[in-house]
């Protein structure tokens, strides 16, 4: 576990997609509610892994669509980046 804070995570997503943090919950769908396509999801994945200095496999990011699932993935499977 990486003990990430969901509010900080929400803020990072909000900064990237330009949707207000109060509109983002665990159930927010990245496709339907954040208007990303699958490539946009990889872009978001790259951005948040850089923000939190954690690596997660892109293939796992590609298989999910809820903000809560991405948070859990980062929290549970994220490994620290080298720099």
């Amino acid at each position, binding site marked *: 576990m990486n003990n990430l804070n969901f509010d900080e995570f929400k803020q990072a997503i909000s900064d990237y997609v330009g949707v207000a943090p109060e509109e983002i919950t665990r159930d927010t769908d990245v496709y339907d509610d954040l208007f990303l396509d699958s490539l946009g999801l990889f872009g978001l994945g790259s951005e948040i892994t850089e923000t939190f200095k954690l690596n997660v*496999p892109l*293939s796992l990011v590609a298989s999910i669509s809820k903000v809560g699932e991405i948070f859990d993935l980062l929290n549970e499977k994220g490994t620290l980046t080298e720099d």
Partner: protein
Amino acid sequence: MSKKFFDYYSRFAQETPDKVVLRIDDNELTYSQFMEKTAVLGSALKKMGIGEDDKVGICMPNSIEWYLVFWSAVRIGAQPVPMDPQSGSMEISKLIPATTSKVMFITEKYRNNNIIAAVSALVPSQIALSKVICFADDSVIPQDSCYISADKFMAEYGSSECDIYDPEYLHTMSLACTSGSTGTPKILSVPSGGFLSTQEDMGTYLEFRSDDVMMLGMTLYHQGGFGMGQQMVLKGGTVMYQPQFNPITFLETVQKYKINIIQLTSTLAKVLLSTPDFDKYDLSSVRICYFAGEVLPKEIADTFVEKLHIRVVNVIGSSETCTMVVWDSARDAGTDPSDFRKLSFTDVRVIDEKHNDVPEGEVGELCVYTDGVITDYFGNPELSAEKILTDDQGRRWFCTGDLVNKLPNGIVRFAGRSKRIIKRGGNLVHAEEVEACLLTHPLIAAAAVTDEPHPVIGQQIVAYIQPKGDARITRGDIAKYFDGKLSAYKVPDKVVPVEEIPKDIGKIQFKYLRKKEYK
């Protein structure tokens, strides 16, 4: 009359009737079912008055139904017109009139794009179509009389008998749609005979066999993804697509069905290679990995060639040429996969603005000959004259818009694009089209769209916007505004507000843009 795809399908249906021609997830279509079902759908279209050269729009995701609609139209000499199922109402409002589609086949939705809603906002109130045939539940089909469910359509109009149309060599088999720079679509007239012979030659070059199974990462509604699949079908093999790309399922499928050929873009390959336990998947059945649509980094090619011992073929070209200028690890190992060479059935020129060949060592525009080069841009003779050159032997050459360096020994090295095209993953996005949509936003005074390198998707779309007055506009606002108007892949990845868009005699000065960012 020339050779036609149905000669091959009919033969395979007789020789190997139960062989699967197309598999998408758990849904399968055999060669004999292909012949039976295209007869029903083709006869239904005919009975409804659709015939030679009539246009049949298809706005559906990868599916068995997509494939049947496409080939049913070809079977009766009509011309299928695949449209991107991510298309919003703004795109569809241009595509239907530009292609002169008489009927359309649609599904309810694709991902978050509600196709029925996008079409029913236009048809019949603004655009007339004879019928919109919906592969959807009755409960979501609009009540208007021009909408009909596919089941009812086939039951009411279809029969088991349907003649097969004999096309002339240059008869347009289908129309392929790509985005135009101003939002006006470019419509490609794909020639029956040339498309077939080029795909068959490529399948032969790649040594595809009837017992091969090919899994494609690109889509059926993309001319390249469709064409590469046909290279396998013309050998009597099996092709597989996914409803939408899922890396884990992709790898599991390769393992389960012992796939021999995989087709990827660089982005898809990066995602696949990032899979935990990638090494534990049994990929030993894979003989060839076939790349198209994006620049292929050498590291990725090396991983497939050296680590996985898979032959890598990278193609450059475009939907207009049926691709076919290649880098092939079996022949070109050790060189960069952006160094391409022609094949025996293709030819290459590197030309300057006056269409003269440039000397060796210089950069020019890549011009490609294949027999499958489109005959014209449908309804656009000016663009056709600009992009399609005919030589004294009557061969059609296509000016690709790719800039290449002309090297010795017939090698051309990819050097970039000549126009403002953003290559986002496997998708081409015209900066001007995104700007045009941004400028319809009531709070935007000016906009400039450009690309930025991205480690995974190659290039991302960056929109610099000059808001009206004190308006504050975020990417989220833009995404909501674009929703239903343009495809999701055209939504800017980054939105940067600026004090002004610097221009010089009307042209955006991109080099000064970043200095104008709000701090």
